[in-house]
């Protein structure tokens, strides 16, 4: 175990594995849409880190995984934006399609 943590490649890959597990847990347990989005993104970035750590040799990461990870980061952002829009529209309609003016509501939840 110790020599695995002493090696940079497997240290980051194992961190990635732990992030995937953590995100998976959050995705199952959480109900609030924003928390689920965050958990889902943690899974994604965990996979990226796993991928990057696994392909780390000597001075750097293999360029092919790097290109795939960049693609993945941008796609993850696009889908997060879609999911966030979906969640907001769902909350606005509140299951009642007739309520078309939900966005004029100025109530805000306090933080504490």
């Amino acid at each position, binding site marked *: 175990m110790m020599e*695995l943590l002493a090696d*940079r490649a*497997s*240290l*980051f890959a194992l*961190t*990635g594995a*732990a*992030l*995937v*597990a953590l*995100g998976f*847990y*959050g995705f199952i*347990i*959480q109900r*609030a*849409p*924003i*928390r689920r989005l*965050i*958990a889902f*993104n943690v899974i994604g*970035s965990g996979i990226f*880190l796993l991928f*990057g*750590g*696994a392909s*780390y*040799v000597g*001075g*750097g*990461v*293999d360029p*092919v995984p*790097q290109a795939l*990870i*960049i*693609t993945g*980061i*941008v796609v993850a*952002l*696009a*889908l*997060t*934006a*879609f999911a*966030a*829009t*979906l*969640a*907001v529209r769902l*909350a*606005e309609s509140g299951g009642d399609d007739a309520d078309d003016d*939900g*966005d004029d*509501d*100025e109530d*805000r*939840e306090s933080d504490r």
Partner: protein
Amino acid sequence: MSHAFDLALCALILGAAVLAVTGRNVFGAIVFYVVYGVLLALAWLILGAVDVALAEAAIGAGVTGVLLIGAWQGLADAGGLEDEAPRPVFLRLAAVAGAGALGGLIALAVISLPGGDGLTLAVVDNQDRLELGNPVNAVLLGFRAYDTLLETLVLTAALAAVWSLTRTRVWGGVPGPGHVTRPDGVMASFGRLLPPAGLLVAVYLVWVGADAPGGAFQAGTVLAAVWILIVLSGLQDEPRLNSLPLRLMIIAGPAVFLGAGLAGAAAGAVMGYPDGHAKSVILVIEYALTLSIAATLALLIAGPARRAP
């Protein structure tokens, strides 16, 4: 010393992720997620993957925060922010067990991975044929250009999906709440000061991208961030979504990309670059992609139209 930093960074990344996933307060979770993005960018820097670090810095630490805070606002206004009903104990236990098993399996797979040189040599040996000094961009726009073409189409499709959630009576209208700020205030001044610097950085990133870390995705994200900043600071409202120039800007990148691929048929290979002119074609594609990615990302963050055109 370097190793101590690696260990501390990984521990902090995990800590920030734990707080982002399980923290009690939703706004706090967003803050931790932004922090997590900054730390991940540093992790990529440590791994020597500067291109990925740039993308993560621009997206994870910059744009995602604005996106999530916007969603937080929308959900708070609609009263759908929090669902406090706790999960039953057996589900929590099952989730812990499942997550533990998943993480353990992946860790086991990582440990048993055979070593190897990967594809680095194959890329470095062949990137001269594209006349690109940056191996990552040689993969993105050369060897795996199909992936990148399809990715830009995924971005466009995601934008179409977001727009499909528009209320019928405001279709083609203006997204966002219509930001108004004090004209001589700090926010408006910031909106005037930062965009020139952001523009400079974006042009620089796409310019050096051929030979050094940078490129269309990183530059496009920085441009999108500049766009969002101008809107947030109330200097310029979002455009109407049914405007033709805007739609053309969104599809310019994929269209030029696809056009270059089809034009390759004339030079001998469909979806291939003409020998000897690969770099000039790639640069044209890259500039068009930068604009399209910037517009698409900025509009994805802005969401569907909310005011009539």
